[in-house]
């Protein structure tokens, strides 16, 4: 669906993108993650044809963006960080204009399409409101409707949930989820929970380079090893400590913290590395009459992975 090869973008002497490559399959919802200044918006601006790359290749549905820009651009809808709205128009006028711009044959089909877009994005009751008077959340919706005009197979959304209140974020999330299947979607964000909840694939950018590209679940699994355990146990602290230290299942007790009276949260490292020791450990604790409230393998959250990947890079840089 979208193929990006060795994309380089220099702003004067500053290298914003240092040769990034990735491939997005049809129907995926991909999260483009990265700290501020990582090159997310630059990447999106280039992929949509707003900016030209210094070098590199972009293909949308096999159509080269640089060779056939008009045709390639008809395959995509773009919601930039700041929605490109003509604030002096009403919602309906604006969407009609965008439909015509994106190739509706005549005013009749444009009107039909506008109607559909407004229903899809819940804007019907605001059709006659001047965009200037809309709140941030509704403007964002008009922006999304604009990107959907012409029913392009590829949607590129730059920080679609920034500045929205929690309810609006949930609505926006639902809206984006409802578009999955019919569209391939790329969403950029630096808010991890947002990406985690919507995207099935993730691309982490840092300092103009791709740090990781994988399925969300896989990425979490790859960066998690089964040796890290977190338990919540009820019992005597000395007893818990003694049992855990004497067993051969565990290599190291990292911490024992009292969370409420008589209940301890224990972090430990299993002896076997990646083999699951939970069953044996449970039996052992039960035999010693220690109540087990929970016993989990610690999963790194996307946030931890993000810090791990982007932080490592900084460390390398500082070592240089």
């Amino acid at each position, binding site marked *: 669906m979208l193929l990006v090869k060795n994309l380089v973008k220099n702003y004067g002497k500053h290298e914003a993108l240092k040769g990034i490559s990735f491939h997005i399959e049809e129907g995926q919802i991909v999260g483009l993650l990265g700290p501020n200044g990582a090159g997310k918006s630059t990447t999106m601006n280039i992929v949509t044809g707003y900016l030209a790359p210094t070098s590199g290749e972009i293909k949308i549905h096999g159509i080269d963006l640089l060779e056939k820009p008009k045709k390639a*651009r008809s395959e995509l809808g773009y919601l930039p960080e700041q929605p490109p709205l*003509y604030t002096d*128009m009403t919602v309906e006028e604006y969407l009609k204009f*965008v439909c015509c711009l994106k190739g509706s044959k005549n005013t009749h089909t444009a009107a039909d399409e506008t109607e559909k877009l407004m229903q899809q994005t819940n804007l019907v009751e605001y059709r006659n409101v001047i965009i200037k008077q809309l709140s941030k959340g509704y403007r964002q919706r008009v922006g999304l409707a604009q990107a959907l005009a012409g029913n392009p197979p590829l949607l590129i959304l730059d920080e679609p949930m920034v500045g929205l209140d929690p309810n609006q974020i949930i609505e926006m999330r639902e809206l984006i989820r409802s578009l999955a299947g019919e569209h391939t979607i790329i969403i950029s964000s630096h808010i991890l929970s947002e990406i985690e909840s919507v995207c099935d694939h993730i691309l982490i950018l840092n300092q103009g380079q791709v740090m990781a590209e994988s399925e969300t679940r896989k990425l979490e699994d790859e960066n998690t090893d089964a040796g890290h355990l977190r338990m919540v146990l009820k019992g005597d602290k000395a007893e818990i400590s003694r049992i855990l230290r004497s067993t051969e299942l565990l290599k190291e007790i990292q911490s024992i913290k009292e969370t409420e009276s008589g209940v301890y949260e224990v972090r430990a490292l299993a002896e076997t590395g990646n083999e699951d020791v939970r069953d044996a450990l449970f039996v052992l604790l039960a035999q010693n009459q220690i109540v087990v409230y929970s016993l989990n393998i610690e999963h790194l959250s996307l946030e931890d992975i993000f810090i791990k990947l982007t932080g490592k890079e900084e460390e390398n840089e500082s070592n240089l």
Partner: protein
Amino acid sequence: MKAIYKRELGAYFHSMQAYIFLALFVCITGIFFSIVNISYGYNDFAGYVLSNSYYMMFIYAIVVPILTMRMFAEEKKQKTDQLLLTAPVSVWEIVLGKYFACMTVFMIGVVIISIFPVIIGIFGNIPIANTISGYIGMILFSACMMAIGTMISSLTEEPVISGIVSAVIGLLVMFFSSLVSILPDGAVPTLIFFGIVIIAVAVIFYLDTRKIQIAGIAVLAGAVITAGLYFWKKDWFVYGLTSSLNWLSLEKRYEEFLNGILNFSSVIYMLSVSAVCLFLTTRIIRRRRWR
């Protein structure tokens, strides 16, 4: 292009822009009409009102920039250019759509001020041929000025700056022949002037293509042509500067129209100037992508 044209035309009337333009245009023309045609009793509208240098100053330094100042500057400022430039339309379609919308508003003004020669026609005699030729000249000259304004608007993000620069350029165009008359005659100043033009063209080529070779070829070609001309027609160089600049002057050619001379080469020249300015606008917009 049609979609952009329609939106742009709507935007002129959604905002105060078109109304301010039309009000000023009609009002200023009306004032000159009542003073020159009614009070003084001259019957030639084109020859005495349209060609009045104060009138032209008002129209081309104040009124026309109102129409062109926001064209691209505002889009850039509001980031709506992201919609246009990522939509499946070419840069030419965007530029022409906007330019024709601007021309349309201007033409509405022209139609309204046509009432003045009609009034003269009802109550007296009007030199009809002169008036028609004057109107054709005005439309062509304004088309040039609006193309220049369009180009300037694509250079900045601030509509106000774009308006002020357009006004200054409007004044320069109008006083062009007066400025030319103070230039010295002689072969040396002509050669220096040619040198400046060649270097300016080379710089534009370089900025457009970022290839020093192309700029070099432009300098070389310019130098060869100039040297060839110099040895072939030496005496032309004595008055070459002023005569060639006067040939370029838009305002001189506009004056011919106002005096009833319909010169075909002037028509072509004015259309070419508009086309070149619009072409440069598309280059400037494309260039921005590469920054």
